[in-house]
């Protein structure tokens, strides 16, 4: 294997990139033939059918397991065994407390795994789990994120960013400013809720653990679980050919994956299936922690910012730290000579928060972009114009020149397409029948992220075909299709000539499908491997020759500030009688580099907009202070947008090629659609009603008169 710098003119052609190739896995998906994590017909070596695992979870928020009585469960027909902290296999490494389950009697949050039932059928597993009696000793707990929750400064925040930044004298500048905003914005518990619940099928044969997992990263799962289980990485194989969504919650392995692995190791030769229930997902598979952002803006009368402060507080778990980087986007968005951002974390007796689509940017840009809307109001300026006036020449955070900042064009293009100019200046100016009508705008941004270490293998096949392999995953993003297109153009062949093998940890290293880094990172490796393949084997390779190459860093992350930008425009209607909010129009215009596949890219951006809309209008996990339990723990009480909530929705992009970021000219697009969207909706509801809501979600009761 060679490590490769991608050389200039990396693509042989752009014949496939830029075309709307149909998804390569579409037929399997529209027929239901695609097999997800517990649908693989896995049997043991002698044909043993899978056992069904069911998780038993704690019902106190803090304390210890005094005893697990499995007598009644084991007496139930079909129940095979019950694992608890006294009987589960010991882990070689317990330093990751989220994953080190069933090793000790401590209970650190409500919903923690305290036992696993194995049974011959799912019905008997479920019934068996109900019959396990767990005696728990409860201790006092603090599980509610409150204004006066004690906080601390983490060493760094998610993504490795600095906890605090300070430039100039923001407090003094704020005190002097003539136009100001000083307000606090909150976002609630938000739960990823991919449609496929977290699930896995595990088979331990005594030497090798095979895991069909619902994950965004087979290699990261392998790399995390193997040492904890005391295994070499090569002894663990993780496959994830189809993944029913993740949105970050399947980006890192969570406790259920460890549960099924441990369970499988107790029954060598017998597969074990575990499907986490929808209810259990609310405690066991990560979530976006609630955030509280205190935003202060100080501007000149012409709207130019002189100072900004964004002090973000969020919730973490005593089990493992996760610090949502909600103030990070404030570092790059607007020019202001005096600026400060801080992050503080409240450590509570709650499940471990984790990645949810655009961690940091989503809640942070909600706060900031509503605050900017308030500033425009106070300055008497159009909110598009105010943003244009605060466009920074260089990245305010690093001082680096922008790679490709085209926010103003997104705002202008979007405003024109949306008909923004026709908007009345005043709020509460338009009534249409039973509805107040208003429009709003917000900006969005997401950093270009590239993950090191990716490796691709290319082998020539008969008839001018090529096998391309990398342990990437397609969680619905279209990766299987766009990587095929990238490989085709990198090798100079049609996409039909590419056999792409992915989603298997036995393949060359692929990083996680997260942080909008997948296509960027995997694609760069494929291009590097294609170049090396041509260098090694020429234009007419013999069938069977191959090259494996790791990509060096292509992106100019040190010399330039590489970010995507966008502008979201929203029309909102607020019912004059009930306060219900509807969004008849939502438009996002983005600058994301070259779009590899317009069909799948559009779906990604629209999907982000839908999730942002959903967060704006519906989503809220409600944690009961008495039990530390999210009681809105299903899809009937934790609402996500249904089809009727999504009306006229459009996503567009600027013609763009970003040669500083990737050899394909592209940047990632998975997250940016959710960023800013909730702010655009909130700003539109303000414009409709004159009621400023600073706390998500924008439920009917907030607008009721």
């Amino acid at each position, binding site marked *: 294997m060679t490590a490769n710098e991608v050389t200039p003119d990396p693509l042989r052609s752009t014949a496939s990139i830029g075309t709307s190739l149909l998804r390569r896995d579409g037929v399997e998906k529209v027929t239901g033939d695609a097999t997800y994590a517990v649908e693989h017909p896995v049997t043991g070596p002698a044909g043993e059918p899978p056992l069904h695992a069911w998780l038993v979870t704690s019902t106190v928020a803090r304390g210890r397991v005094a005893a697990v009585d499995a007598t009644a469960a084991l007496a139930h027909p079909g129940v095979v065994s019950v694992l608890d902290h006294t009987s589960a296999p010991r882990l070689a490494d317990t330093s990751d407390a989220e994953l080190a389950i069933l090793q000790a009697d401590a209970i650190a949050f409500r919903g923690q795994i305290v036992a696993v039932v194995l049974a011959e059928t799912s019905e008997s597993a479920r019934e068996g789990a109900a019959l396990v009696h767990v005696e728990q000793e409860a201790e006092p707990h603090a599980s509610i994120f409150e204004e006066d929750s004690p906080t601390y400064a983490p060493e760094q925040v998610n993504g490795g960013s600095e906890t605090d930044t300070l430039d100039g004298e923001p407090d003094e500048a704020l005190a002097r400013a003539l136009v100001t905003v000083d307000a606090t914005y909150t976002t609630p518990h938000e739960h990823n809720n991919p449609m496929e619940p977290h699930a896995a099928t595990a088979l331990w044969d005594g030497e090798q653990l095979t895991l069909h997992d619902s994950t965004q990263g087979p290699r990261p799962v392998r790399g995390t679980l193997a040492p904890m289980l005391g295994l070499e990485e090569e002894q663990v194989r993780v496959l994830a050919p189809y993944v029913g969504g993740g949105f970050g919650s399947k980006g890192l392995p969570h406790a259920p994956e460890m549960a099924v692995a441990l369970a499988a190791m107790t029954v060598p030769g017998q597969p074990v299936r575990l499907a986490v229930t929808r209810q259990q997902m609310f405690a066991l598979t990560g979530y976006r922690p609630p955030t509280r952002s205190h935003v202060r803006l100080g501007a000149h009368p012409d709207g130019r910012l002189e100072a900004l402060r964004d002090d973000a507080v969020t919730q973490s778990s005593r089990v493992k730290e996760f610090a949502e980087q909600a103030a990070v986007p404030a570092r790059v968005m607007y020019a202001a000579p005096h600026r400060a951002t801080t992050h503080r974390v409240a450590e509570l007796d709650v499940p471990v928060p984790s990645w949810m689509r655009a961690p940091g940017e989503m809640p942070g840009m909600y706060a900031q972009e509503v605050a900017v809307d308030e500033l425009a109001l106070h300055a008497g300026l159009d909110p598009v114009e105010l943003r244009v006036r605060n466009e920074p020449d260089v990245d305010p955070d690093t001082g680096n020149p922008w790679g490709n900042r085209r926010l103003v064009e997104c705002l202008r293009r979007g405003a024109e397409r949306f008909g923004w100019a026709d908007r009345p200046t005043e709020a509460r100016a338009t009534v249409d029948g039973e509805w107040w009508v208003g429009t709003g705008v917000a900006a969005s941004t997401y950093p270009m992220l590239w993950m090191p270490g990716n490796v691709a293998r290319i082998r020539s096949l008969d008839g001018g075909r090529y096998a391309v392999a990398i342990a990437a995953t397609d969680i*619905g993003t279209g990766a299987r299709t766009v990587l095929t297109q990238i490989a085709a153009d990198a090798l100079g062949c049609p996409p039909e000539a590419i056999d792409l093998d992915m989603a298997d940890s036995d393949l060359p290293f692929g990083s996680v499908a997260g942080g909008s880094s997948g296509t960027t990172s995997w694609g760069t490796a494929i291009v590097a491997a294609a170049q090396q393949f041509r260098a090694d084997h020429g234009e007419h390779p013999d069938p069977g020759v191959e090259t494996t190459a790791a990509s060096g860093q292509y992106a100019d992350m040190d010399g330039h500030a590489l970010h995507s930008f966008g502008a979201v425009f929203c029309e909102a209607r607020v019912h004059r009688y009930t306060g219900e909010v509807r969004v008849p129009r939502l438009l996002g215009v983005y600058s994301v580099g070259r779009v590899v596949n317009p069909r799948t890219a559009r779906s990604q951006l*629209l999907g982000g907009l839908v*999730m942002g809309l959903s967060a704006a209008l519906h989503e809220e996990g409600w944690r009961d202070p008495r039990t530390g339990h999210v009681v809105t723990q299903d899809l009937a009480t934790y609402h996500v*947008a249904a089809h009727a909530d999504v009306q006229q929705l459009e996503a567009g992009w600027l013609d763009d090629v970003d040669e500083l970021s990737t050899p394909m000219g592209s940047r990632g697009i998975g997250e940016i659609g959710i960023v800013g969207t909730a702010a655009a909706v909130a700003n539109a509801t303000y414009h409709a009603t004159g009621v400023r809501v600073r706390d998500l979600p924008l439920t009917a009761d907030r607008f009721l008169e």
Partner: protein
Amino acid sequence: MDAEISLTVDGVQRTVTVDTRTTLLDALRERLGVTNPKKGCDHGQCGSCTVLLDGRRHLTCLSLAVANDGAEVTTAGGLRGSGGGLHPVQQAFLDQDGYQCGYCTPGQVCSAVGVLDEIEQGHVSHVSDDLEADPELTDDEIRERMSGNLCRCGAYVGILGAVKQAAAAGSGSGSGGGAA
């Protein structure tokens, strides 16, 4: 307690032993290996498990298998024509990119087939203005009728386009090769 039932699944008669507590969804997925209908919530709150049951769109997670002895089940897998070609609704989902991760998709497809059939039969919906008239297939009608199928990827625009494309192609449950 076990019971033996027979089901016609995608045109094939199957006999299966189930627990009296086994849902139709689990009978299909876990006992018969028919994993085309998906389990998204197991409580009637997402629509991923939708099939056509005796010709009508129906959840399988809230039905006991034993109560459906003798039923005819058509999953998204069974909507294909005899030569394996896609049903026009499935082709429309492909063309319009009415899906991303694919997990809710078989349920969306079955639901769409049911919706087109219900419209043809003159069923009104929550958004129909005039209850006494036959409904028209407007965008709002499609959105409302498809609202029992959640899609967390947010592919609703493509799904709407797919239902419209299929409707324009005249593909209620009558066309295509499925047993619907």
